């Protein structure tokens, strides 16, 4: 497999190219066979190479840019870190391809949808397998592009188009930082391949390293929707649900975490950057969790929950526990995509996203309900399910590495997570049905991937220790053994909070039918998503638009154009004025000549004096 691992990204690439070129021509059946099988193939290949992996495989296909002392090869690298990502990405994407066959069955853009999905898988795999930063940047922006295409898939809906554009632009802002990071790294190291940077990081002063790390982190926040640049993710729910499942749960948003862990030595070397990553992560976690409490759109809730879970991952990596962060990423990919798929099934059945119009779907959609419950239990960290191990691993590492505050916030967020996820369950599956029409169970082709994912989200968490050992060859993975009693104490704390959360949710939404809660000022603020969107608009978008309009009307047309036209008109006016001199009267003509002579004489006399 050593020689063939570079084929992994090329299968979906070929798929995407084929579908784009001949999308209009081939039948739906062929597409629904071709697209998933290609992704399946690449999943198979990544699984095989995962198994046979020993050490680090690097394959340079051709030299992409070679100008002066800058040379960027088109090189792919397969090592433990990227192997995990490759497997998760291709696996989840394969399942979602199958799920989409059912979900998108009666959509007129069917072929176009699968083309974009394949393109996305290709870009994500390229991002994950790239051996140097610029190549990763191709995947990085490619993924941004596909999220733009897929969010704005139903482009006839203005909201979708706006959301797509917003997503791309916010990502672009992140990429701006990422690009500057690449430049800074190049000026520092002269070579942009990960291995080179990681090995030579000590040669650079921590201050510069912090700057470079932070710039890259700006890119990461843009891509993984962390605090400053998270605003695009909630709107990204306009796209089809499988898209949200794949992109906005499992793969794209985790790219930031992968990038940080890939360049972990750089962050470690800079120290301060690592702290910042941790704190940004944990604050985003709690911030997003609070917003999720009050959302009524089922997909918005899941979106905010994704943001907060990724916040956890960043916190994990930030406190130095790369293995824990990656492990949480691995498990999160499964249960979060499952949550989204179930939400998809619910929407497929009910036809609306608004939870207030749902309720009592337990009987109507039993399989969806059960898979949804499993995922909910996992996410709230109930022992026995995968998230319990990964999330608590992070909290343990945080506590042990001295970040007491981070641990505390983490635990509170766990409680909040449990509350909003069960609020969602109770509002959708319990009580009586509040919407019109009769909800029906999703078709089998959707249920199978959901159940597989449910299975994974359970067994996924059973081998935390081997996960760390698997990553150890990377050299910067440290495994801390905590005293048994301390571990129990930590686990207990988050467990209790989770149960309290569930109970409160049960109390509010099942017993008092969701009316009792005092919809005070706090609720309205949370519901309004802290008005962050409006703030951004107020601070950046409107001034930019208004400012440019003003400049365009008054400065561009007013000043510059005016000076140009003004000089033209002045010349014409001058022409008119001077032509008045030609009065047509002979007397004046004589006067002209006389003045000519007089001036001449004056010059002559002056030259004498």
């Amino acid at each position, binding site marked *: 497999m050593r020689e063939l691992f570079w084929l992994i990204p090329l299968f979906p690439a070929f798929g995407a190219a084929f579908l784009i070129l001949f999308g209009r021509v081939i039948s739906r059946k062929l597409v629904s066979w071709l697209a998933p099988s290609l992704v399946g193939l690449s999943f198979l290949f990544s699984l095989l190479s995962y198994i046979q992996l020993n050490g680090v495989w690097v394959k340079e296909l051709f030299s992409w840019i070679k100008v002066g002392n800058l040379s960027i090869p088109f090189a792919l690298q397969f090592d433990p870190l990227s192997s995990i990502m490759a497997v998760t990405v291709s696996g989840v994407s394969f399942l979602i391809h199958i799920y989409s066959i059912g979900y998108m069955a009666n959509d007129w853009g069917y072929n176009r949808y699968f083309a974009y999905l394949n393109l996305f898988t290709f870009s994500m795999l390229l991002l994950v397998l790239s051996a140097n930063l610029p190549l990763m940047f191709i995947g990085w922006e490619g993924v941004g592009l596909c999220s733009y295409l897929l969010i704005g898939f139903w482009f006839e809906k203005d909201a979708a188009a706006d959301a797509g554009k917003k997503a791309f632009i916010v990502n672009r802002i992140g990429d701006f930082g990422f690009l500057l990071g690449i430049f800074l790294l190049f000026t520092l190291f002269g070579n942009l391949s990960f291995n080179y940077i990681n090995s030579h990081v000590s040669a650079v002063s921590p201050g510069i390293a912090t700057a470079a790390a932070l710039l890259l982190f700006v890119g990461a926040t843009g891509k993984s929707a962390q605090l400053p640049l998270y605003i695009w993710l909630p709107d990204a729910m306009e796209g089809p649900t499988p898209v949200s499942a794949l992109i906005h749960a499992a793969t794209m948003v985790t790219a930031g975490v992968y990038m940080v862990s890939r360049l972990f030595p750089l962050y470690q070397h800079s120290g301060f950057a690592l702290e910042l990553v941790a704190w940004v992560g944990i604050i985003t976690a709690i911030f997003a969790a609070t917003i999720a409490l009050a959302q009524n759109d089922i997909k918005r809730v899941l979106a905010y929950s994704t943001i907060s879970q990724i916040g956890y991952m960043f916190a994990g990596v930030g406190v130095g526990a790369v293995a824990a962060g990656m492990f949480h990423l691995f498990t999160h990919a499964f249960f979060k995509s499952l949550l989204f798929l179930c939400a998809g099934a619910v929407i497929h059945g009910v036809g609306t996203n608004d939870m207030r119009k749902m309720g009592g779907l337990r009987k109507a959609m039993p399989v969806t309900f059960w898979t949804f419950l499993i995922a909910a239990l996992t996410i709230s960290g109930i022992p026995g399910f995968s998230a319990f191990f990964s999330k608590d691993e992070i909290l343990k590492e945080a506590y042990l590495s001295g970040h007491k505050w981070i641990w505390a916030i983490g635990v509170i967020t766990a409680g909040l997570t449990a509350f909003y996820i069960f609020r969602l369950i109770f509002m959708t599956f319990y009580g009586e049905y509040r919407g019109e029409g009769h909800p029906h169970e999703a078709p089998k082709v959707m249920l199978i991937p959901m159940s597989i994912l449910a299975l994974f989200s359970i067994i996924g968490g059973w081998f935390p220790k081997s996960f760390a050992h698997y990553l150890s060859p990377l050299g910067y993975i440290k495994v801390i053994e905590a005293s048994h009693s301390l571990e129990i104490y930590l686990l207990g704390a988050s467990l209790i909070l989770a149960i309290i959360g569930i109970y409160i949710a049960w109390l509010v939404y099942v017993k008092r039918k969701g009316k009792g809660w005092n919809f005070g000022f706090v609720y309205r603020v949370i519901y309004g998503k802290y008005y962050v969107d409006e703030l951004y608009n107020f601070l950046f978008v409107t001034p930019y638009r208004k400012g440019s309009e003003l400049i365009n009307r008054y400065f561009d047309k007013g000043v510059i154009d005016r000076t140009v036209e003004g000089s033209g008109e002045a*010349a014409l006016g001058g*022409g008119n004025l001077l032509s008045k001199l030609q009065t047509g009267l*002979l007397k004046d003509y004589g006067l002209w000549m006389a003045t000519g*002579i007089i001036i001449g004489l004056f010059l*002559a006399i002056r030259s004498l004096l």
Partner: protein
Amino acid sequence: MIALVPLLILVGFGIIALVLDLFLLRWWAKLSGYAGLIAASISLFFLFSKRGKFLNGLLVFDAKGIYASLLILVFTFLVFLIADGYDLKVGIVEGELYILFLFAAAGAVVMVTTSHLLVIFVGMEVLSVASYALAGLRKDELSREASVKYAILGVFSSVFFVFGMALYYGETGNLFISPEAVANPSPLMTAAALFLFAGLMFKASLVPFHIWTPDVYQGSPSPVAGFFSIVTKIAAFLAFLRISGFLVNPAVRWFLIGSIILTVIYGNFVALRQKDIKRLMAYSSISHAGYMAMALLLGEKGGWALLFYLSVYGFMNLGSFSVISSLVENNSLDDYKGLSKAAPSLAAGMAFFMISLAGFPPTGGFLAKFFLFSEVGAGGYWWLVVIAILASLLSVYYYLRVVVYMYMKGRVEKPIFAYFPSSLLAMFASILFILELGIFPRTLIYFLRIFI
């Protein structure tokens, strides 16, 4: 005495034409006019080897003079072609048009081939007397006014020239333009220079003395205006070249520089808003006169650039006048609207002339400007070149404005024009010459730089 031959041929055929016209053989008179011009120019070629001073110094038959006379004859020939169809259309029945052209050309040849002030004066008078009549030929109200204005101002300017001659004579005792006489900066000589310049600047239409140009061009018939715009200028500038020795004297030099700056600026600015094509051509000729006058600042050294510029300018101007006269006296720019659809060849020709007058590269106009301005610049007047270049930017506007009217402005009724075979021939000939001068002028330039 041989050197007199071209002049004699010219005047001889003029008189034959006069006699023929007496017997109302109008066509024959024209034919003898053509014959006279051709014979004279051929004689010039033969006599090129016999250069020198004749008739005790009054007739200077040097390379400059010969080339200028050749130019005068060629351009008069072109004017003949243009006038050929035009005159019947406008009602100038008499044959005198051609006779007057011949005599005027003779006067110009006289002016060009001498360095004696009195001969220049008499040549100038022959030229202007014929021009007063030519200006009035159209027999309508404007034409009469043009000839009266030209006559009176002409007399007025000739008096200046005479007074200049008197002072010159007072200082040197004879009227030969000798380099050392011209150079001494005594007050009398500066005054003499000023008055002589006044007379010549009137003819060359440089600013303080240009005021006759617009009205006379507008009033006189188109071929005649064409004739004025180039033949008078050649004669005036050659005479100027002869007495350019005066420019050593700072007062005189600053007087000319001042006039050049005013000419270039005034000529270009006023032309911007002109509605009548002939007035526009008048102002364009004023501004071109300003450019040519710059070559005078270099004295003898700038001669070749001046002559090259004159030759190219001649073809450009007469080409445009051939088109203007094909539109037979409806001269406002609105009459040119939609010409490109009605008469594509005329419009294309006019557009070509306008573009070459504006000085766009592939045409001769650019090359002429290139040589002229670089010579003047090399002479140390870089700032003057910059002013002239910026003024010529204005000229691009009004030249292209004519093209705009022809190509880019539609019109309801068809423009009135007539296809005269001879003026078409003149037009194509000028296009060919401009392109030839613009792209393959090597032989001409070698000739000019060696002999002048």
